[in-house]
């Protein structure tokens, strides 16, 4: 059971909007007035009426600001596309903040927003990335192009020379909303000349650094605190203008400020995920052996290209997936459009790679007239080939993909499912059965070797405090790290405190993203605890009046004993830590753990769907998953991550899509219009265990946070297509809504 849960279950967590910190006493509320048009020149902004509205303390537009633009998410993105804090000169997407209002009460800000008059001169909006790539309408005229990032392919038609079969297809990995249940929220106060910022973020130190850069301050002069965070899923990694502007607003009105967006603001204001148009070409032999693969990606970057525009690098890295393909090439380009910017979302670039190669494998299997599971088996990297360097130059640490496939097919009862499918097809039943198989490998704690900071202190009362740069937003860090330290130091869990998400208390931190927390944060804590033991040994030797080499530490009891071996005659943490403190230094160790490389979790999923061929309705009946994340330290938490990931992945395949009309107006801007998956659309999941420990870190652990999402999307999508294969359907884009499925059936029949 989790340590976090009693509070969350009885009084609820303390999220930013719940904070009652004394520094926030008398805080005013911030309301943003957002653009209602996707692309326009701002011809005038009249704030007079709003400024005199009841309770209003200040109203500000871009002309009032003396702040630089938001720091870029990546140095490779064009400087001309960097984002201003408030729309400057023109608006570039619906939802872009134009005016900030500070008021005594939140509702007064909402009322005053109605009194802000902004005149727009509309410009043509470019919404579709393919159109944006033509550079006919420029989102950032100063950049001279809409292209924010370009990775050229290296080959031409020769890639497929000698292939007996070549299949080509275009597909869309659609734009999604992350929808953490807690929207974005932050509060800001000036305390003794320093910024104190409370933020619903995955990465407190990242917010600190952004604020320090924008305000020209030493990072040490900024304190960022992430209290309980109600989900993030990648969309709460980076800092956004709405949050970064808060200290400036607080200074203007001479009071602390609070800001919590509405869900409707969140759906257009927080970065979206995915958004790739993909072209796959796959070639090989008639016997099912794949010899060449090309992926061409057009990434929708949105109005101010951000993290999402560099994710194609991860897509490129993982393009060949679990397969041993001799020739692979990837070309990718990211373009600005008049839509919400794209950022990371659970999987971040890797689900896109997996969806593409898995669909390509299905198409190749269909063309070769072979079973899709069998084609995968013929092409996987063999278990004895690790570490394995792919055609992309990426070295996978360890894996056994064929075993994962065997396990999942066996658990699913694959042969029986195929027999049931054959029966329904022969009977021409209205509801057909579809079986989707996916294999995946992903990169966690990457793309380069990551590191994380930890400091472990044993206090003189024998309790321990752990400071970690990793930061929980639901994953259960307290539970995981407490048990790790308890088992290593022999200190009872209730005597261990985990401190995270406070930049004044934790010196450095890379936050929680990319499935990195246990393997990097956990390894750092593991090593810091080990160093604490090393430092304790000579003190114990001194107390026991013996040689340090004679001292034995027993992690089950947390006691040090001398040559007589009796723990009772030994000393415990109280004596050792107390002595250390008495000597003038706390018993502590700080470690920055750096992995030698990322790790590569893998797995295999099978989805089983019913598809009503008359209505197009799809029902996910079963989902079976093998997810190998190396050594599992806490099965409860690992399973929870898999469940959540599978649901989000299935949601992409079946339901969810962020849509804009041709003028760039969002049509899924609230939770009534955006189809977040509910309990009623999902089955319980069937999980199969597999553990292949990685040699990359001392825990043997790989990441588990995103695997479920990466494996499930292509399995579910494939199952929908598979149900209709006998009708001639080869592909259905996501989400497989009834309308889209129905149209695919009709198109195949004509």
């Amino acid at each position, binding site marked *: *059971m*989790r340590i*976090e*849960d*009693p509070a*969350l*279950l*009885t*009084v*609820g*967590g*303390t*999220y930013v*909007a*719940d904070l009652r910190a004394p520094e926030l006493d008398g805080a005013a509320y911030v309301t943003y007035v957002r653009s209602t048009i996707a692309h326009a020149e701002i011809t005038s902004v009249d704030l007079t009426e709003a400024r005199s509205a009841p309770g209003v303390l200040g109203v500000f537009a871009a002309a009032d600001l003396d702040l630089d633009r938001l720091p870029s998410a990546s140095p490779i993105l064009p400087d001309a596309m960097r984002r201003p804090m408030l729309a400057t000169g023109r608006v570039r997407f619906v939802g872009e903040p134009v005016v900030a209002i500070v008021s005594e009460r939140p*509702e007064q800000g909402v009322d005053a927003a109605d009194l802000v008059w902004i005149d727009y001169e509309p410009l043509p909006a470019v919404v579709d990335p393919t159109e944006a790539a033509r550079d006919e309408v420029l989102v950032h005229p100063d950049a001279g192009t809409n292209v924010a990032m370009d990775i050229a392919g290296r080959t031409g038609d020769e890639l497929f020379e000698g292939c007996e079969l070549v299949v080509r297809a275009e597909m869309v990995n659609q734009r999604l909303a*992350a*929808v*953490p*249940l*807690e*929207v974005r929220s932050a509060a800001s106060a000036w305390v003794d000349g320093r910024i104190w910022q409370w933020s619903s973020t995955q990465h407190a130190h990242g917010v600190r650094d952004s604020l320090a850069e924008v305000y020209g301050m030493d990072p040490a002069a900024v304190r960022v605190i992430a209290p*309980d*965070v*109600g*989900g993030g*899923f990648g969309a709460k990694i980076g800092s956004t203008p709405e949050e970064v502007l808060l200290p400036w607003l607080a200074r203007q009105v001479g009071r602390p400020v609070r800001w919590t967006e*509405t*869900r*409707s603001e969140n759906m257009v204001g927080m970065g979206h995920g995915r958004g790739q148009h993909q072209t796959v070409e796959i070639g090989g032999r008639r016997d099912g052996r794949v010899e060449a693969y090309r992926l061409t990606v057009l990434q929708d970057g949105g109005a101010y290209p951000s993290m999402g525009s560099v994710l194609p690098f991860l897509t490129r890295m993982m393009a060949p997936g679990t397969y041993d393909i001799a020739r692979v090439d990837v070309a990718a380009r990211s373009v600005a459009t008049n839509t919400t910017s794209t950022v990371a979302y659970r999987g971040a670039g890797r689900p896109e790679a997996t969806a593409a190669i898995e669909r390509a494998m299905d198409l190749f299997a269909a063309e070769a007239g072979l079973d899709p599971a069998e084609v995968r088996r013929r092409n996987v990297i063999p278990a004895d080939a690790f570490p394995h360097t792919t055609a992309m130059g990426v070295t996978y640490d360890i894996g056994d993909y064929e075993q994962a496939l065997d396990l999942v097919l066996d658990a699913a009862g694959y042969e029986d499912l195929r027999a049931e499918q054959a029966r329904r097809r022969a009977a021409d039943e209205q509801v057909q059965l579809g079986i989707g198989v996916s294999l995946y490998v992903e990169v966690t704690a990457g793309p380069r070797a990551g590191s994380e900071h930890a400091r472990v202190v044993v206090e003189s009362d024998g309790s321990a405090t752990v400071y970690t740069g990793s930061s929980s*937003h*639901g*994953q*259960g860090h307290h539970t995981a790290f407490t048990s790790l330290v308890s088992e290593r130091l022999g200190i009872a869990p209730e005597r261990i405190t985990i401190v995270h998400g406070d930049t004044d208390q934790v010196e450095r931190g890379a936050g929680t993203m990319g499935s990195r927390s246990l393997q990097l944060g956990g390894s750092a804590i593991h090593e810091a605890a080990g160093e604490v033991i090393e430092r304790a040994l000579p003190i114990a030797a001194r107390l026991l009046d013996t040689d340090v080499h004679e001292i034995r530490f027993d992690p089950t009891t947390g006691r040090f004993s001398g040559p007589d071996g009796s723990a009772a005659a030994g000393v415990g943490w109280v004596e050792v830590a107390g002595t250390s403190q008495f000597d003038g230094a706390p018993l502590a160790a700080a470690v920055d753990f750096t992995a030698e490389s990322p790790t590569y979790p893998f797995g295999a999923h099978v989805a089983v769907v019913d598809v009503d061929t008359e209505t197009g309705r799809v029902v996910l009946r079963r989902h079976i998953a093998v997810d190998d994340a190396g050594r599992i330290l806490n099965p*409860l*938490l690992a*399973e*929870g991550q898999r*469940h*959540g*990931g*599978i*649901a*989000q992945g299935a949601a992409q395949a079946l339901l969810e899509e962020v849509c804009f009309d041709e003028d760039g107006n969002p049509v899924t801007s*609230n*939770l*009534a219009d955006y189809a*977040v998956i*509910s*309990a*009623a659309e*999902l089955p*319980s*999941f069937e999980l199969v265990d597999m553990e292949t420990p990685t040699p990359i870190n001392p825990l043997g652990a790989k990441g588990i946070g995103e695997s*479920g999402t990466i494996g499930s999307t292509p399995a579910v999508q494939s199952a929908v297509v598979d149900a209709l294969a006998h009708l001639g359907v080869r592909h259905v884009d996501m989400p497989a809504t009834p309308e889209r499925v129905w149209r695919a059936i009709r198109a195949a029949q004509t």
Partner: protein
Amino acid sequence: MQISITVNGRERTSEVEPRTLLVHHIRDELGLTGTNVGCDTTSCGACTVLLDGESVKSCTLLAVQADGESITTIEGLADGEKLHPVQAAFREHHGLQCGFCTPGMVMAAVSLLAEQPDPTEHDVREGLEGNLCRCTGYHNIVRAVLAAAEGSQA
């Protein structure tokens, strides 16, 4: 307007603006921040509380509509230190991760079990359709609710 609501067994009288939503009254005026706001379209259920024993989305009622009624929020569910069986089952079966949907989800489950003491998995899934969770994939929430039902049957 002056309203009087029995909140977690205690009568609370306050002055409210007619336009104040019940959820804002609960959070801002009564200081019970366990109840969360997750959307603005009555879609997510994070704000679910019990109104005279039955679950309602407190963003969908005006505070004045609760005048004279009795409400229970997550803070009022446990019996002192003893968790309500639904709370205990959520803990036992890892039915929560970030915790933001949890208070509403637990209150919805309590109401569901009051109406259907012996639900099937299908009943639970349909019954909780109006409460969104982004972390758990609902798998363990459903297990927890079924376990709570079984526990109270025993």
